[in-house]
């Protein structure tokens, strides 16, 4: 049977497929506090990422990041048949982080998510911060952190760890998406976490297989590209990546098996009040006193919380940077 592959049809199919399976949250599914919170965290991270890559790549960063973002988008079209009409395909966050380094990967994934939202309505605009966080930052953190931990190890070990990192990065994105949906009052925890993690455990296998094969190909052909990535992030990434991976591994079964427990913890922290009237009053304990119980107060509370998160993020980022600097930087090969 002759299969005509029209580029447009293939692209459209890949977008539709992503929409069903992947983690692109559309507008309207997250409430405003969560949207603002995730946007602020994303903005802080992107600011650091821009500064870091500028120092490293200089003027070259615009063409390199731009073309590699287009690459991730195009690579998401590449699929392989699994069974029963389903196919595995690449999301690319972990591969980008391993090959380009964590900060460039964040910028690349942010552009990918942005174009998918602006051009294809795949993922929302106001919730884009959450989408970038789930698909760009978490994947970069886990993908790079775990892979970096095996630097200098034998090739087979590195590839195996890259596969695990790719799988975990998809799971982390799915878990974060579920938690954001739950905190927004859109989904109930006991349903959304097992469902999302179940689906993405399979998607993650496809992601892991392609990532490992692609990385093996690149290591065979241009090992210098991936080795150069060693200078791009220090031990801070390893620690952070391991910590987040561990959190996913521990939190996922807990959330699936005992959602009530997690909800109890959340309400003990004053984080959640299930059964509230409107979606936007989800942080009842986060009411700013002089504003009273209004949506505005909630927004202000959200912003204050987000600033805290942003400060923590920037602080830890500078720690990461210092950790990175303490290492002797190997000579970068001229590309």
């Amino acid at each position, binding site marked *: 049977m002759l299969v005509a*592959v029209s580029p447009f049809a293939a692209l459209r199919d890949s977008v539709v497929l992503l929409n069903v399976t992947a983690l692109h949250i559309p507008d309207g599914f997250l409430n405003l506090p969560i949207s603002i919170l995730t946007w602020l965290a994303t903005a802080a991270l992107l600011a650091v990422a821009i500064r870091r890559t500028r120092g490293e790549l200089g003027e070259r960063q615009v063409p390199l990041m*731009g073309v590699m973002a287009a690459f991730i988008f195009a690579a998401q079209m590449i699929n392989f048949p699994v069974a029963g009409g389903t196919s595995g395909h690449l999301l690319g966050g972990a591969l980008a982080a391993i090959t380009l380094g964590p900060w460039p990967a964040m910028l690349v994934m942010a552009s990918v998510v942005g174009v998918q939202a602006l051009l294809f*309505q795949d993922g*929302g605009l106001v919730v884009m911060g959450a989408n970038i966080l789930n698909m760009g930052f978490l994947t970069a953190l886990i993908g790079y952190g775990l892979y970096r931990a095996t630097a200098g190890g034998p090739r087979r070990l590195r590839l195996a760890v890259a596969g695990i990192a790719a799988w975990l990065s998809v799971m982390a994105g799915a878990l974060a998406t579920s938690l954001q949906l739950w905190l927004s009052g859109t*989904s109930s925890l006991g349903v959304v976490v097992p469902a999302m993690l179940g689906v993405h455990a399979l998607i993650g296998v496809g992601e892991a297989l392609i990532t490992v*094969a692609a990385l093996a190909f690149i290591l065979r052909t241009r090992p210098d590209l991936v080795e150069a990535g060693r200078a791009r992030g220090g031990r801070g990434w390893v620690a952070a990546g391991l910590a987040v991976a561990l959190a996913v591994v521990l939190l996922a079964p807990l959330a699936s098996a005992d959602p009530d427990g997690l909800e109890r913890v959340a309400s003990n922290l004053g984080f959640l009040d299930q059964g509230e009237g409107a979606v*936007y009053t989800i942080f009842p304990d986060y009411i700013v006193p002089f504003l009273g119980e209004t949506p505005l107060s909630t927004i202000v509370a959200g912003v204050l919380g987000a600033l805290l998160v942003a400060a923590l993020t920037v602080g830890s980022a500078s720690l990461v940077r210092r950790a990175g600097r303490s290492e002797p930087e190997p000579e970068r090969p001229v590309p």
Partner: protein
Amino acid sequence: MRALQLERYVAGDSRVHSLDPRVKVVITVLFIVSNVLLPDGAWLAFLLGWALVLLSSALTGLGPGYATRRSFVALPFALAAVSAIFALPGRPLFAWTLGPWHLVATDAGMIRFASIVVRSWLSVQMAILLTATTSFPDLMHALRHLRIPRLLVQITALMYRYLFVLTEEASRLLRARAARSARPVSGEGGGSLAWRARVAGNMAGNLFLRSYERSDRVHHAMLARGYRGEFRTLNPHLMRREDWTVGMLAMLFLLLLQVISRTGSL
């Protein structure tokens, strides 16, 4: 896929097309924020929001139903919100037992679910109109004016430029694979799962190297043409009185929606 296919309607000359892209971006984002802020079950406000979409769509010259017809892309995600039907306390509507779960659908849950889907559906429509009436370079320039970091905008603009080049390269790879792996009309493709995954991975790795090397050539080409760290445009992007008026009217309308949803009986 070519840019022409994607931007089929961008070349229109309606009043919406000629509106300053900044105004369109701000209105779209505020419209989405407004949708998110509307309480559950604010049906009148939702309906008025849809009226705004239909009106804007009619003004673009693409027909009032243009945005609505294309707005069903995000609906599969509604699955994620289904559980809200059973999660909220309220008057029980119906119940059934599904394996280990006993599910009770409540009226509050149904209203929450419907509201989430409607919010998302309205938001997507406005985003579709923005994309349909604004060329991507204009959109990027608007984001630049709206103080989105220069680097992020430039990377995204350059990504858009090479999107079509690289997706065509990817589809050539896919076509080559299809041509070399004949398979029976019914039945599975050949090879084990791991083998198929490795082929796909090699294609991705191949595309990676081609893209990486291309980015080098692009960089040299940019330097040769005098790139100084800023993309230039001939479009002046001046806010005219009309732009201000439309922006203000839209904001007033959105404010009205919020007031209606909170004071009216609906």
